[in-house]
């Protein structure tokens, strides 16, 4: 599969993926530092370890396609091309943020990029993606919708309701489950009777595909195929990307519930290292890219912080359109 992908996705594009994955990793790493400085408050749900899923999948859709993400959504937003300033600004509650600072970490939304929703309620984004896909179809466009959710999200009602509606109406939508093995603090097998969540697709008469979520080429390939199916009017696909969350569920979770050595084993298959190896990047090249991206991350945080806070008068206008 990889060979085919390499043929389709040029070296430039894949170098771009490498850089974007690094950007997501270093963006997330810096969040903790900004927390300690009091520049970000509340909570955050970081995605170190998931970078190949967001970058591989989002790179498989076009600008005209719709995207819904979750509270663990910094990576997808950056993968969709949101600037780090707009993302950091949002985390800092400032007007440099994509939502003018009122949404915060869990709601990185940008309608200008068709990133139409970031949901802090488990499962809520799936029906919205179905609605976007159905609307695209009814309006006679060929746009599709891509919807991310987590392994824990596959147990809530809206997941099943959304898959059922998407299948029965042949909606152009692709559902990606990021299975990082833990729903909040609980191992997925403690709450779910399946090892492979893609099996749930059978109940909704759609293809269910399992992909290595640490392999950006593989993720891109399966999502591209599902997007092509959706665009051709053949209906939805459920994709399960097996991945791992390097950090805890949220900021205050040290993830002590994990078995000893589990994190280290997963880090041996780090998505950024895997792609770097495939691209044949030397240590020097990696170091120089790392320094370059780190400088961009640091500069973005400084720039985001310069913006003023939104005012009560401004945010009152967000409640109602009229």
């Amino acid at each position, binding site marked *: 599969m990889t060979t085919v992908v390499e043929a389709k996705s040029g070296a430039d594009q894949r170098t771009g993926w490498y850089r974007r994955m690094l950007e997501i990793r270093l963006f997330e790493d810096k969040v903790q530092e900004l927390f300690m400085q009091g520049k970000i408050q509340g909570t955050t749900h970081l995605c170190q370890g998931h970078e190949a899923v967001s970058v591989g999948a989002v790179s498989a859709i076009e600008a005209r396609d719709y995207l819904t993400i979750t509270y663990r959504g910094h990576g997808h937003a950056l993968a969709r091309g949101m600037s780090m300033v707009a993302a950091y600004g949002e985390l800092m509650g400032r007007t440099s943020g994509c*939502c003018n600072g009122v949404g915060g970490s869990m709601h990185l939304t940008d309608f200008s990029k068709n990133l139409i*929703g970031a949901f802090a309620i488990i499962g*809520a984004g799936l029906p*919205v993606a179905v609605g976007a896909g159905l609307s695209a179809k009814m309006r006679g466009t060929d746009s599709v919708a891509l919807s991310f959710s987590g392994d824990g999200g596959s147990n809530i*009602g809206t997941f099943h309701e959304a898959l059922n509606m998407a299948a029965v109406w042949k909606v152009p939508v692709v559902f990606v489950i990021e299975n990082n093995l833990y729903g909040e603090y609980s191992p997925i097998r403690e709450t779910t009777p399946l090892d492979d969540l893609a099996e749930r697709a059978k109940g909704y008469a759609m293809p269910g595909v399992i992909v290595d979520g640490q392999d950006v080429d593989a993720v891109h390939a399966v999502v591209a195929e599902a997007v092509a199916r959706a665009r051709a009017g053949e209906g939805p696909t459920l994709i399960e990307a097996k991945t791992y969350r390097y950090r805890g569920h949220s900021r205050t979770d040290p993830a002590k519930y994990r078995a000893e050595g589990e994190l280290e084993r997963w880090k041996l298959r780090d998505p950024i290292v895997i792609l770097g190896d495939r691209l044949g990047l030397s240590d020097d090249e990696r170091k120089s890219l790392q320094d370059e991206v780190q400088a961009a991350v640091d500069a973005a945080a400084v720039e985001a912080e310069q913006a003023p806070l939104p005012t009560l008068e401004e945010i009152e206008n967000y409640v109602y359109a009229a």
Partner: protein
Amino acid sequence: MSTQLESKPAGVGSDAAELTYREAINAALEDELESDPAVILMGEDVATAGGVFKTNEGLSDRFGRERVRNTPICENGFVGVALGMAVTGMRPVVEIMFSDFLPTAGDAIVNELPKYRFMCGGQCEVPVTVRSIGGATGRFGTQHSATGESWYMALPGLKVATAGTPDSAYSVLRAAIRSNDPVVFFEHRGLYGRKGPVRRGDDNIAAVGDAAVLREGSDVTIVATLLMLDRALIAAEQLAESGVDAEVVELRWLRPLDTDSVRRSVEKTGRLVVAEEQVHAAGWGATLISQFAMEGFEWKSRPRAVSLPDNLLIPYTPELEDTVVPSAERIADEVRAALK
């Protein structure tokens, strides 16, 4: 568009036609589906046999089963679908077969529709109308009889509307569908057969947030919604026979709550009776009375409420259902008590 409507028997500029409340709902849906291709209607059985309560008669034949779409039984899911459609250029109307099923869509209605525009910093509009059909008197039992009208009035970002007459069914529903904000619109099943004059046309689209004075009077103000509005109008006629001149205000919108219109009425009458088919606690009646208390309004006699009992549920038992749901006589009795 107005030309098309003018060509209808009851179109713009024509006199009001006698329609049932059900026919008025149907007319509002038809006129909005006709006027804007972005409008769609979806819900359980909405496209089959005119819908469960026959409010959608003829619509799927005329507009097709894509725009008038049957859904699986999954309220939270299909209200979420409506949200996704609304933020990508459409204007969905969703039917919830019984208001008792609204909490099934709790996340979509409480967390998604009202908060969506706010959380994204005003980047989008959310023109979703949720039609919810409820109310007692049908002998449908405890889980199919709630009006639910006040359940969602405490949610900034949402609008909440009701209709108590055929004309308001037409004009308020059209206003709800045209709103660029999410609206939960409550219909009362017990009113579907009720007839009344309806002015059909674009000049009869209600103003969002405005209550309507349906009967002018000088002695007492009765504020009501849905079936209680119908009964308040009957009570007012009975009272008139004994020389009591009641003003009847149809609240129509619970969010925004039209305290100003009610204030204008009570400034004239000095007396207020609210008639609600719900418990009084945490509802629109209590909210109105609280508002006037905070303003230090000076009453001629204390405000009164006719409502469902605070510690009872609606029984199937037909005779007992009739006892529990306030009658026109009970409303009239409360008015007389206010005048003592």
